[in-house]
């Protein structure tokens, strides 16, 4: 990943782990940069963005686009399923764990994007085969398996918002670039 991609990933992570509109704003502003969307994002009512964000990803009502991998990968959309625990193992294999283990599902998108940051960095900087394999596995077998469905569901949800669309667009672009850059799937 080049530095720009890492920055994007960091911003996306912060976006999806946001607790309020005030957290969404800086991530979105930087993501928009000087693109045509920037002016529109600049005029955003961040309360409105937060309400939409919560309808999609937080609650308290039933979520329109649950931001948890297991909601897409399990045969039933549940939290803390088998797939969540597999992701916990991947983190473990990279020497990592979530400080909120057992409370925030390990496969929440924000945590996974953080893991992507960590795994790709290890793959790049460390002289070992394992982190490279692990990163490619995580990217091709896991993130690629659910993020497209998640992006699609969030885009089609009733509670859309330009700020959310901006993040989803960047997430999609980021994912596509990683998929094409990384030497293909592992065997």
């Amino acid at each position, binding site marked *: 990943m080049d530095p720009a991609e890492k920055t994007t990933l960091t911003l996306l992570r912060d976006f999806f782990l946001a607790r309020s509109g005030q957290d969404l704003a800086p991530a979105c502003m930087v993501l928009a940069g000087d693109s045509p969307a920037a002016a529109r994002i600049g005029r955003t009512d961040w309360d409105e963005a937060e309400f939409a964000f919560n309808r999609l990803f937080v609650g308290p009502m*039933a979520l329109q686009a649950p931001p948890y991998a297991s909601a897409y990968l399990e045969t039933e959309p549940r939290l803390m399923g088998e797939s969540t625990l597999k992701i916990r193992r991947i983190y473990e294999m990279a020497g*990592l764990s979530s400080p909120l283990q057992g409370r925030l599902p390990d496969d929440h998108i924000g945590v996974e994007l953080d893991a992507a940051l960590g795994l790709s960095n290890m793959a790049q900087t460390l002289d070992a085969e394992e982190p490279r394999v692990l990163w490619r596995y995580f990217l091709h077998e896991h993130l690629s398996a659910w993020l497209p469905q998640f992006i699609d569901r969030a885009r089609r949800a009733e509670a859309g918002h330009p700020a959310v669309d901006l993040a989803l667009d960047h997430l999609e672009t980021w994912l596509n670039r990683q998929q094409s850059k990384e030497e293909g799937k592992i065997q």
Partner: protein
Amino acid sequence: MTLWKKNDIETAMECPMTRRRFMKWLAAAGVAAAMPCGFLVPNETKAGIVYEGGYETFRNACPRNCYDTCSMVTYVKDGVAQFVEGAPESTFTNGGLCVKGNAYIRKQYSPDRIKYPMAQQGRGSGNWKRISWDEALTRISEKFIEINEKDESMLGLALTKYSGNFGITNYGVEGMFSSLGYTTRMVGTPCWPAGIDAQNYDMGNMWCNDPEDMVDARYIILWGVNPAWCSVHTMKYIYEARQRGAKVVCIDPVLTQTAAKADEYWQINTSEDGALALGMARHILDRGLVDQDWVAANSVGFGEFADYLKQEVTLEWAAEKSGVPARRIARVAEEFATADPATIWIGYGMQRHVNGGASVRAIDALVAMTGNVGKAGGGARYGHLMTWGFNYHAMIQQPPKGAKGFLGPTAKGEFDFTKDAEGPAYTNRTLNINKTARELLNATDPPVRALWVSCKNPLSQDFDRNQLEKAFKKMELVVVVDQFFNQTVEQADIVLPVTTLFEEWTVNVGYWHYWLSINEQAVKPLHEAKSNIEIAAALSKKMNELKPGSCTFPTDIDTKEWVAKEFNKGVYDLFGINSWEDLKNGPKKAKANRLAWADGKFGTPSGKYEFRSDLCAEHGFNALPKYVEGRKPYDKLRLLTPHTQFGLHSQFINLDWMEDFNPRPYVYIHPETARVRNIADGDRVLVKNKTGEVTITASLTDNVPVDAILMYEAWFKNNPYNCQNLVDDTSADMGGYKAGAPGVAIHDQFADLVKA
């Protein structure tokens, strides 16, 4: 160098050995060097003993408002609850749960759970902001302090809580309110109060035998009760009694699932239970089948009751009122009086009427005059609270020094086991829970300004929904503590996520069977959920931070220790245990009290069974268990809104697992009633009355009588259905004596319907 393949990674995710082999690289590379993450941290979990493939098991207890209060075992792996079973040690639960209990895993891990404290900008707007616990409690505390300063008391602060979670430590919600000062409490119960008072007038307490002794009954009348759906674990005892030769008669306006399993089913005219019981009593008297010895030794007022029967009751009159043919009444009366022992299970449905308490008294009398009170396999079974002798440590809290409160008459709920305080003039202000809407609207001096809702979903469960919406609008602050986004949460300012049974420590007993179960914390609370007592402690901390001395609730608590503090020697002795920790080996059944009134010492003023109760007369009712007319119909058809098998009040029905079996609500209509209105099976219909309306799908069945329609009380996800749109808040006769407020005439409602 090993070349790791995709398969190896997948194997490593499953197999700890391979995983450890894989992880050797970590030591070589040095983890710290590779720490670019902002959220994840170096893994410091020590390699403990892991029994791969095995499960850890935990003891849980279903805390819902249900006869069965099942003892459960939860299987946990990787800190995640995987599946549940009934505890095999309880002969009552007997290893199996029910359709609801088996859905708990789904409830726990549903993506729909409320995860964080959140605040709504504009009630009902759907515009929610996530806030921290600290911010939520600050906003709440500031409001409470503002109320106290404005009114010089906390009476503007009201609590509505009932049966959403019967775990004993959850009475800490009441404790939290007491620790804030004198407040306003919604008191009473929509459930069973008329019958409680009736049994108190007759016998001096609500007390029934262990349901497991029903196997010894020779005759069982199931009167307005549907155990096949609402106490499914009791059915096996009824079957066993039947196999041993007992006859089972079911009396209900509806041909219920229980009716289908009886020998004989009577479709009684709704709310005429008293007339039917008195007709049977008259016939028993006429045939000389009264147990004269028992009556002489153990009762007062039977002579007067017999005179009343002779003068004002006939078999034909009872037949006309109840709709049951006289010869049937006569035969079953004779069979009942001659069977030994014979028992009647009095359901809660049959007392949700303006004459409900009177009807229960008439049935009690029938059981007593045949000498069946105080016998194993006999009895007038209704419910009991004989196993609830906890310390109520979480519940009993003192008001802050100098707190001011209410001066005037107050009421106490049936689960309020606190002793009346001596001396202090001030008390809480009590409002009738069954008239929540109008009480909240009408309360003055001070008005109710803030409402705290816990263990309850008033907008799905309370009556006169339209008025209740108005009452909510009047509030300056509404705080709702819940797990799912139900119709009450929709109208909250602040919602707080509360733990499930798997996430908290507590202890449970039932009001029907005699088992005691510990509820262990099996997994960590998901997201940011807190238990009710943790919420109370956190609120107290914030209150004291903002205004020292404003709340007495302990601010630093260990929830496991708080369970221990609920136990005492009385509980240990009753259940034959040395420590509450013994319950980790399985639930325990009470060693005593399981045979009600066996010694003939009643709790009435006379110490006898009172066919004539002067106390009842003092309270404004008949001294004798006389017939009382039902409510006059105010529309064309009677409307029944009983319990479904798929939920407990508004819990479970919203889960998608449950939707597989119960996807939508129906109104059940007799084919003839539908025909004259040109309604076909599956049509959408509009049900309407003076209170409101409901649009719903029709299901035609002659299980319901021709003059009634039925819809089940429920909260469905993504469906505005709410039967309380049609139910007004008319009171039942009794309930004010022991439950704090009269019951509510849920089944004395009327409506008509047309094709939508």
